[in-house]
C-alpha cells in the first residue's frame, strides 16, 4: 500500500474521533509482509526403520545424514492493522483491529472513544506528541528482501544445514530458520503528526546437535540485519564449531568466583533484559529502578559507555520516528561510568516537562505491533567497544571462565534489583590465557548493576542483537558453579 493511501485512512479516522467528542486521537497504521522458513535436517530413520510398535511413523534414530532433504516448514502472509489511542478528559482509550479497511478502522475508533470515556482521568497525562520533522535517514529498505521467494529462502536454510552436517561427523541434527520481513508504518494524530516510513529485516539462525558416546550437546548462531545477506556459510560454520567445541564437558572442581569473559551474545542477554528496565523513565518514576535519583552520578567504572542511537546507520532499530511519531535521536546514557540520560516516551517526558527521547515502541506481548500500546524501549542500545578480540580477552586471564551461547533463565532475572542467576550450556574453563575445556551446564550468578562497576576490559567484536549492539567483555566477581 502506498504512503498517501495509508495516511488518508489515518486522517479520516482521526477526524472521526474529534466528531465523536475526543480531545485527542492517534492512529498507528502497520503493514507487514513476512515469510518464515524453517528446515530440520540431519540423521533420520526412513519410514521402514520405524520403531517397534509404531508402524509407519517417522522416528529420529541413528543413520546416515540425509543430504538436502529434511522437514521444511514455511509460512508466509500479510498482516495489516491499526492501533488507536483516544483521549477524552485525560482518560486514555486503546483499541486495535487487524484490518485497514475504512469501515473497520472507524468502528475501532468508536470503541476506543467509548473506552476513553470510562477511564478515570490520568493526572499525569499532558498531550499527544507535537509535530516535529524527522531528521534521520529515510527508512532502511532493501528491495532484495521483497523479491526473495520461498524457493530461495528454503535453499538458504537447507544448504546451511548441509554445511553444518558436513563440518563434523559427530553432528547429528541441524535446524535452520530464515525470515524475510518488510513493513510500512504510518502515524497520524490530532496534533498534526503525519509520518510514514518503511523498512526491511532479514534474519537467519542455525542450531545444531552433536553426539559423542553418550554425551549430547547443542549450540547455535544467528545474524539479524536490515539488509539481505546471501552468504550464510559463516553463520552455519560458526554453528558447527560452537557445537563441536562443547563436546567433552567437565565439571568445575570447586565453585569459581572471579573474572569471567562473557561473549557478546551471552552478556547481551543479561544486559538487554536488566539494564533496559533500569533506564526506563517509567520505571524510575514509579520507583522500580536502582537509577532513581542517580542521573549525574557514577554508576559504572570508567570502562563503560552506553549510547542509545536511533539513527545508527544499518541499525535494527533505526527508523525515522518512533511508534508515537517522535523523531529518533542519539541519547548518551552512560559516559565513562557516569549516568547522563535515561529513555523517555511522550507520556513520561511530559510528566517531567521535558522532551521525549523518541523511545516509544510497539514491540510487545502481541505478535502484531498494532495490537500493543506504546512502551519505552531502546532503539539501538550500544555498549561502546574498546579493543581486542574475544581471543585477546581470554588471553588476559590466567584462570577464569568463558561464557558463550544462550543463557537459560535470563528473562527471569530480577530487573529491579539486577540480581541474575542463569544456566549456561556453552561455558569453558580458561587456564593460562587459553580455553582449557568445556564445562558441564553451570550456574552463573551476580548482580548486573554491580557488575558494571567491575568491568575489567571491553573488546571490539561488537555484534547486533536486534535493538542491542554489544561487544564481548570481562567482568570480575562473578560466581560460577557446575
Amino acid at each position: 500500500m502506498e504512503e498517501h493511501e495509508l495516511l488518508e485512512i489515518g486522517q479520516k479516522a482521526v477526524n472521526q474521533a474529534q466528531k465523536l467528542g475526543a480531545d485527542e486521537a492517534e492512529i498507528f497504521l502497520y503493514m507487514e509482509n513476512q515469510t518464515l522458513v524453517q528446515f530440520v535436517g540431519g540423521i533420520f530413520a526412513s519410514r521402514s526403520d520405524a520403531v517397534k510398535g509404531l508402524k509407519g511413523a517417522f522416528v529420529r534414530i541413528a543413520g546416515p545424514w540425509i543430504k538436502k532433504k529434511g522437514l521444511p516448514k514455511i509460512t508466509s502472509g500479510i498482516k495489516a492493522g491499526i492501533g488507536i489511542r483516544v483521549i477524552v478528559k485525560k482518560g486514555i482509550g486503546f483499541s486495535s483491529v487487524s484490518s485497514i479497511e475504512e469501515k473497520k478502522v472507524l468502528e475501532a475508533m468508536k470503541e476506543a472513544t467509548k473506552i476513553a470515556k470510562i477511564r478515570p482521568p490520568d493526572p499525569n497525562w499532558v498531550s499527544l506528541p507535537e509535530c516535529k520533522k524527522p531528521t534521520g535517514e529515510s527508512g532502511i529498505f532493501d528491495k532484495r528482501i521483497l523479491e526473495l521467494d520461498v524457493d530461495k529462502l528454503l535453499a538458504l536454510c537447507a544448504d546451511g544445514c548441509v554445511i553444518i552436517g558436513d563440518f563434523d561427523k559427530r553432528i547429528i541434527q541441524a535446524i535452520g530458520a530464515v525470515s524475510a520481513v518488510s513493513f510500512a508504518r504510518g502515524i497520524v494524530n490530532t496534533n498534526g503528526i503525519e509520518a510514514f516510513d518503511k523498512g526491511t529485516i532479514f534474519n537467519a539462525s542455525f542450531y545444531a546437535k552433536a553426539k559423542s558416546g553418550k554425551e549430547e550437546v547443542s549450540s547455535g548462531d544467528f545474524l539479524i540485519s536490515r539488509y539481505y545477506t546471501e552468504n550464510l556459510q559463516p553463520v552455519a560454520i560458526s554453528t558447527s564449531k560452537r557445537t563441536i567445541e562443547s563436546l567433552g564437558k567437565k565439571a568445575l572442581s570447586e565453585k569459581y568466583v572471579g573474572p569471567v569473559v562473557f561473549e557478546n551474545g551471552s552478556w547481551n542477554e543479561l544486559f538487554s533484559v536488566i539494564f533496559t528496565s533500569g533506564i526506563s523513565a517509567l520505571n524510575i518514576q514509579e520507583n522500580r529502578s536502582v537509577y532513581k535519583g542517580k542521573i549525574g552520578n557514577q554508576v559504572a567504572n570508567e570502562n563503560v559507555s552506553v549510547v542509545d542511537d536511533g539513527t545508527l546507520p544499518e541499525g535494527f532499530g533505526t527508523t525515522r520516528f518512533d511508534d508515537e511519531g517522535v523523531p529518533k535521536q542519539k541519547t548518551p546514557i552512560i559516559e565513562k561510568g557516569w549516568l547522563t540520560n535515561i529513555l523517555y516516551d511522550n507520556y513520561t517526558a511530559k510528566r517531567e516537562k521535558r522532551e521525549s527521547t523518541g523511545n516509544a515502541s510497539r514491540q510487545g506481548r502481541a505478535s502484531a505491533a498494532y495490537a500493543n500500546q506504546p512502551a519505552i524501549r531502546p532503539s539501538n542500545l550500544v555498549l561502546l567497544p574498546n579493543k581486542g578480540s574475544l581471543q585477546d580477552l581470554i588471553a588476559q586471564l590466567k584462570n577464569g571462565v568463558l561464557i558463550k551461547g544462550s543463557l537459560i533463565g535470563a528473562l527471569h532475572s530480577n530487573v529491579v534489583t539486577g540480581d541474575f542467576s542463569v544456566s549456561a550450556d556453552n561455558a569453558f574453563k580458561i587456564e593460562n590465557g587459553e580455553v582449557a575445556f568445556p564445562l558441564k551446564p553451570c550456574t552463573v550468578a551476580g548482580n548486573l548493576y554491580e557488575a558494571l562497576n567491575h568491568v575489567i576490559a571491553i573488546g571490539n567484536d561488537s555484534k547486533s542483537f536486534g535493538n542491542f549492539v554489544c561487544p564481548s567483555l570481562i567482568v570480575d566477581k562473578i560466581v560460577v558453579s557446575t
Partner: protein
Amino acid sequence: MNKAIKHALELGAYFAEVKGEDTKILNIEAINKEIRTVSEIHNIGLGMRVFYGKSSGFSFSNILDEENVSRAVEIAMKIARASTKKTLIKFQLSTVKPIEEKKFTNVSKHPKDVTLDDKKDLCLRQCNTAMNTSKSIVNTTSAFGEYHGAIYYMNSEGTKVSYEPLLVGLRVSCVAKKGTTIVDALDSHGGSVGLAEFEKEDHTPEKMAENAASWAMEKIKAKPAPAGKFDALINPRLAGVLAHESFGHLSEADFVVIGVSPLTGRVGQRLGAEHVSILDDGLPEKGGYKIYFDDEGMPCTRVEILKKGILNCYLQSRLTARALKMEPTGNARSQDYSFEPIVRMRNTYFDVGEWKPEEALKELKQGIYAIDTAGGQVEDTGTFLFKAVRGYWVENGELKYPLRDVALTGNILELLKNIDAVCNDMLISTTPFGGCGKMNQRAFVGTGGPHIRVKNVLFGGVA
C-alpha cells in the same frame, strides 16, 4: 472462502482448506481501585492450507479483497511446491467424512450485550472488597477478560462448519504485607459463560476477592513446607495442571510422530491404577472452554487418553493420525488465522472417582494438602517441577497449619502409579488470560479434575 478453495484447486492442489476468523479480545485491569488498562483487539483474517505433492503450504491475509486473498492462495501453493522438493516424507491427511454444521452460543448476559461500564465495575468491586478486608492487604489487582466472535472453516472435501467461541474470565490477586513478610494469593473463575455467571453466589466478584484476601492473610502466618517425601492431597486446579502440563503434552501425537514423547509406542500399556482416567474434551459437561470444531473442521469430541489406567490413544490432528495410522481426534488448533494448526489440547482433566474429598483427607495420616499452582517446568521426559501456591500440613486427617509456596517434583509416569484415591468432585478451570504456549502459538485451554491423593510425592521445601 469458496473462491480461495476453488483457486487453489485450479492451481493444482489436491486438497485445500480455509479458516476465517472475526473475533474480539477485551482486557480490563484495575490496580488498587483504579482502572489501569482497557484494551481491545479485533482479529479478522483468513488462513489457508493447501496440499500438493508430498507437502503442504500455509499462508494468510487480513486484507480480504479478492486480489490479496488470491495472492495468499498463490503463496501457499508456492510454499507447497517448494517444500515438496525438499521433504523427506510425504505429509498427508487422514481420510474423514465431510460434515456441514453451524453451532451457536447462547448464554445469559453474553459479553457483547453487556456495557463496558458494568465490566469495569466487576474489577472495581473486587478491588474494593479486597482492600477493605484488612490493612495488611497492600495491593490488589483485578482483571476481566473476554474473547468471542465467529470462526468459519471449509475445505475442498465439502466440510463446512462454523461456531461462536466464547471465553470470559475474572481474576483477583492480593498482596499482603506484615513486617518484612510479603505474600500473595489469587482467585479466578472463567469459562464459556455469560456474565450472569458472576451473579452466582460462589463466583461474585466480592466472594472471589474475599477468598484471595483471606488466603493471602493466612499465608502471612504460614510456615515453609518441610522437604522430603510425603503423601499428598492435590486440589482440582493443581491436578488439572498436572494432567495438562506433564501428561497431556506427552500424549500430543506430533511428539509421538518424531519419537520424542516417552509415550511413543505405548498405546495399550498400563500406566496407572484402574481408577485413574485422563480425558481431553472439547465440550465438557461442566465448565471449561467450549470448542465445537478444531481448525481442520473436525468435531471436538471427548478423548479418553488414559482409560482406567491404560494408555488408550494420543491427541491427533488429521496430519499426525495419518502418519501414525490412527484416528484423528479433533485436536488440531491454531492461535488465530495467521498460524497453521498444530496438535493442541482443549480441556484436559482427571475423570472423577468414588472418594468423597472429606474422606480422602480423613484417611491421610501425615502429609501435605497442596493447593493451586503458579506454574512450573516440565521436560519432554515427563519430569516436572510445580510450585503449589498454598497448602496445609495434615496429620491424622486434620489440617494442622497453613504452608507457604511448596514445590513438588517428580515424573508424571511415576506419579500416575502412586495415585491411591480419586475423588468425586470436579472443577475445570479456564481463563482468557494467557493460555498454553507451544511452538510460538498460544491457545486457550481448560484444565481440571477432582481432588486426587498421591503417595510419596517429593516436596522441595521453600520454592
